C-alpha cells in the first residue's frame, strides 16, 4: 500500500523533501513507517521528538495504516 508522508520544519531539512510517497506492507503501522524512513534517510534518525498524525488526526506508533493515508510528521519548534 502507498501512503503520502508530509514533513514539517526540521523534518523537511533532514529528509530533503516536503513530502514523500512511501510503499509499505499491507499490515504496516506508524512504527514500521518511521523505521523505514530512518533506514532510507539516515539523517532522519536525528529527529527523536515528533508528533505523528494520520489523515489530520493525532496517531500513536501502533496505529495501522491504510492505502492512501496521509501521514504528517511534526517536530517541535520553539522560535518566538
Amino acid at each position, binding site marked *: 500500500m502507498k501512503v503520502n508522508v508530509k514533513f514539517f520544519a*526540521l523534518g523537511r531539512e533532514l529528509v530533503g523533501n516536503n513530502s514523500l510517497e512511501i510503499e509499505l506492507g499491507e499490515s504496516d503501522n506508524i512504527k514500521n513507517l518511521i523505521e523505514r524512513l530512518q533506514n532510507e534517510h539516515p539523517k532522519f534518525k536525528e*529527529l527523536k521528538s515528533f*508528533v505523528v498524525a494520520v489523515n489530520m*488526526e493525532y496517531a500513536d506508533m501502533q496505529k495501522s495504516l491504510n492505502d492512501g493515508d496521509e501521514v504528517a510528521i511534526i517536530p*517541535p*519548534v*520553539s*522560535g*518566538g
Partner: protein
Amino acid sequence: MKKNIPEIENTSTDLAKEEYIRYSRHLILPEVGEEGQRELKAASVLIVGAGGLGSPATFYLAAAGVGTIGIADFDNVELVNLQRQIIHGTGDIGHPKVDSAASKMRAVNPLIKVKKIPEKLSSENAMQIIKDYDVVIDGTDNFPTRYLLNDACVLSGKPYVYGSIYRFEGQASVFATELGPCYRCLYPEPPPPNLVPSCEEGGVLGILPGIIGSIQAAEAIKLVLNIGESLAGQLLLFDALRMEFSKLKIRKNEDCPVCGKNPSVTELIDYDQFCGITADAEDNLNITPLQLKQKMDNGDDILLLDVREEIEYKINRIEGGQLIPLYLVPLKMNELDRSKEIIIYCRNGIRSMDALRNLKAAGFEKVKNLAGGINAWIDQIDPTLQKY
C-alpha cells in the same frame, strides 16, 4: 471556557462614554456586544515574551480593551530584533523590552492597565506571576520556558495559548484546558539541545511571528469571550511559503505526567535540566579571539573549521579556514587531520560547540571552540569584516 475566567468581583467594568465609541466595532458584533466588551475589560492576560510573537499580541490585546495586560520580558531591545519585533522601534534600542511594549500599548489604549514584569520566568517565580491572570500567551523562544509555562498553567488551571515558529513555519494551539491536551501530551520529551535552531541560528521570516502571534491574540480573546471554537484539542500548522494552514486533531494523553489521570509532576521542575541544557563545564574547551589570533601569528599548526552555511560564508569569514556546514560534519569529519589542533567557529559560538561535541564523541581530542564566534572575532580582532 467560562470556568477558567474568575467571577467579576467588585471592579466596575461598566463602559465609559469614550469606550462605547472606541469599541463600537466590537459592540455591534452579536457575539461580543456590551457584555463581551465588559468581559474583556474584566479580563487579565499575561504575555510572556515581548518579542516576535509577543509584539502583535500586545498591540491587538490593547486595542481590544483587555483590562489588564501583563508583559514579561527580561531582555533589552537590540537592533537585530527590529526585523520582526514590531512593538519596538529604533529609539528603543538598549532599553528594556517591557518599557517599549508598555508604552506602545498605552499609546494604543490608555484605558487599560499594563503591568511590566522585567523578569525571567523560572520555576521560582512562574506560579506567583501567572496566578493573577486569566489566560497566558506564550511568546517565548526556547523549549525550557515553554515546558515551564505549560506545566505552570496546568498546575494553575489557566489556559495556555501556545505559538511557536521556525523559519517559514508556525504552530499554534490552546493547551492546559480542562478537557484538552497540554504541550506534554504532544511532546512528552524535549528534543536534544541545539538540534532545533533558534531564530538566531536558523533565521526566520520577519512577518511569520506577526501571523502566529496575531492568531494567539485571537485565541486569547475568544477564550475571554467564550465564543467560537478554540484551538484546544487542535494543532494549527502554518506554512508561509505555501500560505497553507492545516489543523490536526489532538487529544489529552490520559497518562500525561502533568495533566493526566495520575500526574507525577505536581510542582515545577528544573526545565534546563529537563531539556538537557547543562551549565558549560566546557569552558576549558573555549578559546578567545585573541588567543586564536596569537596562535595564527605564531604559525601554530591549527586547522580552522567554519561550520556555518555557505550563505553565511559568502558574507564573511576568518581567512585560512575550511568550511564544513554543521549538518555535514558527521559525514566529513574523517577528512579532518586529527594531529592538528582543530579550532571551530560559527557566528556566535553555539553551533561550533555542537560540532565540537560531535568531534569529541568521535575521538578527536585537540578541539577548541571559538567563544562568541566570528561576531566576537569582529568585535575584538577584525572590525573590517561585515557583521550580520
